[in-house]
């Protein structure tokens, strides 16, 4: 509660602050160093941001989580001002003192975001010691793709994957980590990322049963699409979310997407400020700029991912999303997944 009181007070102050005055080229000749995923800092946005603020934004695009870590940790946060990072990864940056908490008063657009992102204390992994170390920006869920001709009524639960009706008509994803997590959710386990021995044993049994119902385990979206085209497929565990939905619809598939009632695993990318941020106000202006409705819509149109401002196919207002976290022991999950696959 005190957290949200703080937040409200902060937002009150934001309203009172002379935001409009500041926006007219207040950062002339300043430089903002941005590290982003492809699609998070498109040229037209950068140009508009520069025109509005007078600052220069230098964007470096990265390709992997490890690359972000190498660059931020390698310079102890000094080479960048603001960077895109998912909530699971964010934790090690906070642990290492590589982030600077946001002053939400300087990001007024945050109060217009979708309800599920309004109260940052309710978004797992964002807050630490009462401070917001990141602001959510982009997300996607891992729900169910179903063929509308073959699955009626639409599925509402992951249990459909175990339904004998769909035997040999299911595509699952070839990854032990995620499969343990979503099966844990299906079995009603609260924290699917930290499982004990007993839970893992039960999940293993259930995954062996899943294996019997599955046509194949895919790894890439292209592969899933090709499998769908040349086989009788009813349900797909959509590891690539809306990207996959879009690719399938473009190919003429009569499919729809749904997040199951147990909750769908979902990733969430955020903007965090580094410990070496040169001008926190300019960094906040960047984040605030990106939280506009127009940008959110364009982001989703261009990438297929969900944005935090405008509702998209990634999640309905009442869908339950479970933000991905590091799992207790990835190696163990992978080994058990091999054991499951080796079962005759």
């Amino acid at each position, binding site marked *: 509660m005190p957290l949200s009181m703080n937040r409200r007070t902060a937002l009150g102050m934001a309203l009172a602050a002379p935001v409009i005055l500041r926006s007219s080229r207040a950062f002339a000749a300043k430089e903002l160093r941005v590290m982003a995923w492809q699609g998070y800092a498109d040229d037209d946005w950068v140009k508009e941001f520069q025109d509005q603020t007078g600052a220069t934004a230098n964007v470096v695009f990265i390709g992997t989580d490890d690359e972000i870590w190498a660059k931020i940790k390698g310079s102890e946060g000094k080479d960048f001002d603001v960077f895109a990072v998912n909530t699971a990864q964010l934790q090690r940056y906070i642990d290492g003192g590589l982030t600077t908490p946001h002053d939400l008063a300087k990001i007024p657009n945050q109060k217009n975001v979708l309800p599920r992102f309004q109260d940052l204390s309710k978004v797992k992994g964002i807050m630490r010691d009462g401070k917001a170390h990141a602001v959510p920006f982009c997300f996607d869920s891992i729900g169910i793709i179903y063929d509308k001709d073959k699955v009626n009524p639409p599925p509402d639960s992951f249990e459909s994957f175990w339904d004998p009706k769909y035997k040999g008509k299911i595509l699952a994803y070839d990854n032990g980590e995620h499969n343990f997590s979503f099966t844990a959710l299906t079995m009603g386990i609260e924290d699917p990322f930290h499982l004990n021995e007993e839970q893992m044993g039960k999940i293993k049994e259930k995954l062996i049963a899943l294996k019997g119902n599955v046509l194949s385990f895919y790894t890439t979206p292209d592969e899933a699409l090709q499998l769908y*085209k*040349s086989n009788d497929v009813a349900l797909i565990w959509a590891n690539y979310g809306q990207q996959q939905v879009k690719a399938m619809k473009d190919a003429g598939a009569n499919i729809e997407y749904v997040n199951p009632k147990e909750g769908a695993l979902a990733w969430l990318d955020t903007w965090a400020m580094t410990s070496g941020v040169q001008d926190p106000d300019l960094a906040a202006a960047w984040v605030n700029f990106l939280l506009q409705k127009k940008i959110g819509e364009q982001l989703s149109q261009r990438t297929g991912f969900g944005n935090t401002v405008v509702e998209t196919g990634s999640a309905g207002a009442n869908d339950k999303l479970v933000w991905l976290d590091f799992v207790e022991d990835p190696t163990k999950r992978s080994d058990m997944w091999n054991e499951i696959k080796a079962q005759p």
Partner: protein
Amino acid sequence: MLAGSRRAVGDQMIFVGSARHGYGPRLLALISYVLPAVFIIAPLASFLAYSFFRMENGQIVHDLSLGNYRRFFADAIFVPVLWQTCLLCLSVAALATLIGYPVAFLLASLKGRRRHFLLLMVLVPLLMSYIIKIYAIRSILGGNGFLNRFMLWTGVIEQPLTVFVFNLNAVLLTLTVLLIPFAILPIFLALERIPRSLIEASVDLGASSLQTFVRIILPLSLPGVITAATFVFVLAIGDFLTPQMVGGQSGFTFGRIVFSQFGTAFNWPFGAALSAILAIVVISVIALGNRVGQRST
């Protein structure tokens, strides 16, 4: 006449080679030793070294131990999967050789342009990307694939068959199709090397075509057959993509386990140990093939 001129060319080359004194040949020799040492022996040795390390808290610990090898024998999944994979690859080798032999035979009996054309047809698939070939085969074998639609159309079956999709049959079939060129070539070379005079003598002495084939051609081409089978086996056992892409939920092979150790499991030392074990299997098969091949000549 032809053989004579070929020998003449050979002599000339030897002459040119020995006439050139100085650093040239020595440099060449050095390169021919250094390149394999740097690019083949060294990586393999580092792999072997890794297989004695272990993982702790996501970090590779550089202590030497036999733990990875112990685990291979102790865990219930590795030995059976390796055994099953060996059986699968033996079947692939047998099938590819059986199918490849008649093709190679035809190839060896053809002359001139027709031979070149057929040889080209055999080699063309090797120019194509491996993955594209797997994709193509998958659309042929799939539930709504070409094969099923064709059989439905002709009325041979009433329901799409699933015998050839996403199981070990599919892996067997796909690997065989992919690797047949590697079976054809060594057999073709062995057949071509059989002196015509021997075959003519056999016919002159009154042997039937079948007798000539069974008593002359087949034994003399056997080293090629064994090379072909060894080639195909070795290539098949190292493959981890085909089982993944056409094997479905039951097409799990040893290559997949090794692959996962370097991917999701992030256990390089154990993956290295599994690779070393696979290498031992492969080397044994090659040695065995050599031995049998030599005995049969």
